[in-house]
């Protein structure tokens, strides 16, 4: 199983007494671009947060790179659904991107010149260098998203976990983000992306997980992303595809 980077075994997650994830078993492909799709409330964000140990599961096991300890999280760049941060905080875009480097610093140690260079490079990759000194609260939604992606890039992790990075952004930015993802994939990175536009799944992702509380189907996009599976996932919500 060399080509698996994340293994989820019999995962159950509940909010109080309301199950959100039910008997999840899943292998995620190393160096793949995996989309996670499913209707609103399907538990996509919950699954990702559980992987990041932000939510404690009721039962089950998640192995990342063969490890289950907390330290492995440093190797994951996580981009939450909508930057759930303290927007009142006086930080510039560069400050935020530099935080990606904190992962490699211990307690007390400050980021070095080298870290600033990496952060600036990440900003360039996301075409955000002009916003470097801009207050983070003064950015548009799409620019914020790019700033947080730049932070993820600056973190220089092997695994990227993104919760709807393409939500609410224009087509130019969407293309930019997908280009960056494809380029990083050739450098050996793994992507797990919650995705809402069903029409672009085939074009953007080589693997897909279709879920609604449980896993409906998962595997290579061509084999798994069928009308029947999608229908199954979205049916009870009454959404036609």
């Amino acid at each position, binding site marked *: 199983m060399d080509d698996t980077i994340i293994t989820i075994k019999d995962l159950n997650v509940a909010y109080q007494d309301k199950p959100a994830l039910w008997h999840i078993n899943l292998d995620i492909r190393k160096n793949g671009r995996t989309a996670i799709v499913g209707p609103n409330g399907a538990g996509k964000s919950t699954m990702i947060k559980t992987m990041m140990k932000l939510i404690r599961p009721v039962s089950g096991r998640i192995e990342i790179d063969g490890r289950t300890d907390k330290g492995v999280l*440093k190797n994951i760049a996580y981009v939450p659904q909508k930057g*759930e*941060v*303290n927007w009142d905080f006086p*930080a510039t875009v560069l400050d935020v991107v530099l*935080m990606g480097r*904190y992962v490699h610093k211990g307690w*007390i140690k400050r980021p070095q010149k080298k870290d600033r260079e990496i952060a600036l490079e990440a900003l360039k990759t996301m075409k955000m260098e002009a916003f470097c000194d801009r207050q983070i609260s003064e950015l548009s939604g799409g620019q914020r998203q790019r700033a947080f992606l730049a932070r993820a890039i600056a973190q220089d992790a092997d695994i990227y976990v993104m919760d709807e990075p393409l939500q609410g952004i224009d087509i130019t930015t969407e293309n930019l983000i997908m280009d960056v993802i494809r380029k990083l994939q050739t450098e050996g990175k793994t992507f797990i992306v919650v995705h809402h536009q069903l029409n672009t799944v085939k074009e953007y992702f080589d693997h897909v997980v279709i879920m609604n509380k449980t896993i409906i189907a998962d595997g290579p996009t061509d084999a798994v992303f069928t009308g029947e599976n999608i229908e199954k996932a979205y049916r009870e919500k009454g959404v036609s595809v």
Partner: protein
Amino acid sequence: MIEVLLVLIVTALATSVPGVFLVLRGLSMTTDAISHTILLGIVLAFFMTNDIRSPWLIIAASIVGIATVYIIELVSRTQLVRQDAAIGLVFTALFAAAIILISKYSGNAHLDMDVVLMGEVLFAPFNRIDVFGFSIPAALWQLSIIMLVNFAFIALFYKELKLTTFDPKFAFIAGFSATFIYYALMTLVSVTAVAAFDAVGSILVINFFVAPALTAYLLVRRLSAMIWLSMLFAVWNSVIGYMIGFSYDLSIAGVTSFTALVTFMAVFIFSPDGWLNSRLRAFRQKRTFTRAMILMLMNERGHTRLTAGEITAHFNLNRKQFDNHMEHLLINDYIEKKNGQYTLTERGEEYTHYTRIKYELPI
């Protein structure tokens, strides 16, 4: 009397620096709660040691301070009451316990309610200790040490404070404990509040913690700049508070707190992005926009000749506004008036063209 001023400045510096993070984390009211409940710790430790200068007072007060934070968390985590209600509940209960104990068991002048509540920085120099052969006020010595500890904490854990305040989830992933930083900060806040008791009392200490940071926040958008500027405002408030309070025989801590409010209001109103400027800007923009729209209307087919009545009705203007706009437009030669009707001049035509470009309207 310079010692009184020094005590005041050191208190203000010791409180204002952690205050920056209290403000950014929305912990002002929690801090206010702590600064009252620590009294319970002080009273209990005082009854046990019978020594107002015992270090046990600080230790006991800090424990009660942290307990306050923890109980507030517990109560609000039940989600049966909201955070603000939880603060109100816990804080008043513990504070009341302290008041009851003082009034019932202490006939002792050392625990004077007025001083506890209001502080009296003027008394600070009477209580002296010898440090390296110099006689200095005990409060000055104690507060200086606490100030340096606070500075050191913020300098050392700057990165961690920044990260856990801005994005606690990411801090967790990056391997930094937000809980540790939170409780460490609140411990320092408790210790600082106890030490500040003598000088400023439990009611006003919240002002010393948050007012400089709030004022700085209006002016700068970098964390480091906010910290430095808070320190500057802390010193400013103290100096002005001392001078006025001393000259007119008023409560120095009270005048300092009031100065902080006046300073905040002044910055709020007069700073470059402040209330006055933004109101002025908005007013000018609206005025320019209305005038441009009047010209634009005259540029439309069927509206090239307009009477005063038509214009006031269309833009919902009163007579005074109308006269003001028209006078401006006539003087600047954008319009002309013939037989009681207004029409665009050539210059006015040109202006409407640029207006379309400026406001990105179809040409």
